[in-house]
């Protein structure tokens, strides 16, 4: 079976996050993924896009975020591309919830959620483009 690719581009505003979740849900259901995998993909992609908006584009709401769903026989991948500031995965540390509560600063959980929910999380940089691929394998 050939790969199937479905694409969506949104402006870098949180108001479009629900559209992204619906896009991922629709294609994950069509690909007949189990319900828990559909929910996990929705959330991981939401977190990745929210991070692009906040950290890569630093709140600029007019920049593009390109999302592609890639359906393969053995896996379902969502690729998120932006042209903002890159993310260095080497600086990622698993968050300490108690420390976050004590510091009274929200945030820092998104990348942790992506890693907990996905089978594979990959980051690449191609020229000025940052790419994050979130993959769930079929069981």
């Amino acid at each position, binding site marked *: 079976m050939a790969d199937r690719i479905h694409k969506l581009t949104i402006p870098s505003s949180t*108001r479009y996050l629900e559209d992204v979740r619906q896009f991922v849900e629709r294609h994950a259901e069509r690909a007949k993924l189990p319900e828990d995998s559909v929910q996990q993909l929705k*959330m991981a992609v939401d977190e990745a896009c*929210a991070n692009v908006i906040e950290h890569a584009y630093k709140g600029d709401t007019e920049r593009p975020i390109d999302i592609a769903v890639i359906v393969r026989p053995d896996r379902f991948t969502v690729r998120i591309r932006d042209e903002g500031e890159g993310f260095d995965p080497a600086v990622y540390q698993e968050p300490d919830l108690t420390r*976050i*509560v004590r510091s009274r600063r929200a945030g820092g959980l998104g990348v942790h959620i992506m890693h907990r929910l996905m089978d594979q999380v990959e980051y690449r940089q191609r020229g000025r483009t940052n790419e994050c691929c979130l993959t769930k394998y079929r069981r």
Partner: protein
Amino acid sequence: MSSFSVGFRTLGSVQALDLRGELDAHTAAELEAAIEKCQQDDSLQILVNGANLMYISSAGLGVFMAHIEEIREKGGDIKIAALQPKVYNVFDLLGFPMLFDITESEEEAVTKFGSPAPSA
């Protein structure tokens, strides 16, 4: 655009917040405003009813984390009740049951606050 709302109810000394819809990075500011209003009103026994909460992302979870310490220092608490299983799974995944009092029913949370449960 994500649809989300917070309803306010008073249950004796407990301030109930009824969450409805999807709580994400776009809508988390509404929950933030609701919890800040409770603090301004000195209503520090906050019961969050999640029966109609369909989705939560880290932005929503972060609101609870940012406020819980200050509310507890002042003698109050945020208790979270009646979450749908798929939403509870997100709280559980991140270890929230270790940090927050999460109950199956609203009545259970009210009882834990030490107030009488409201009559039906």
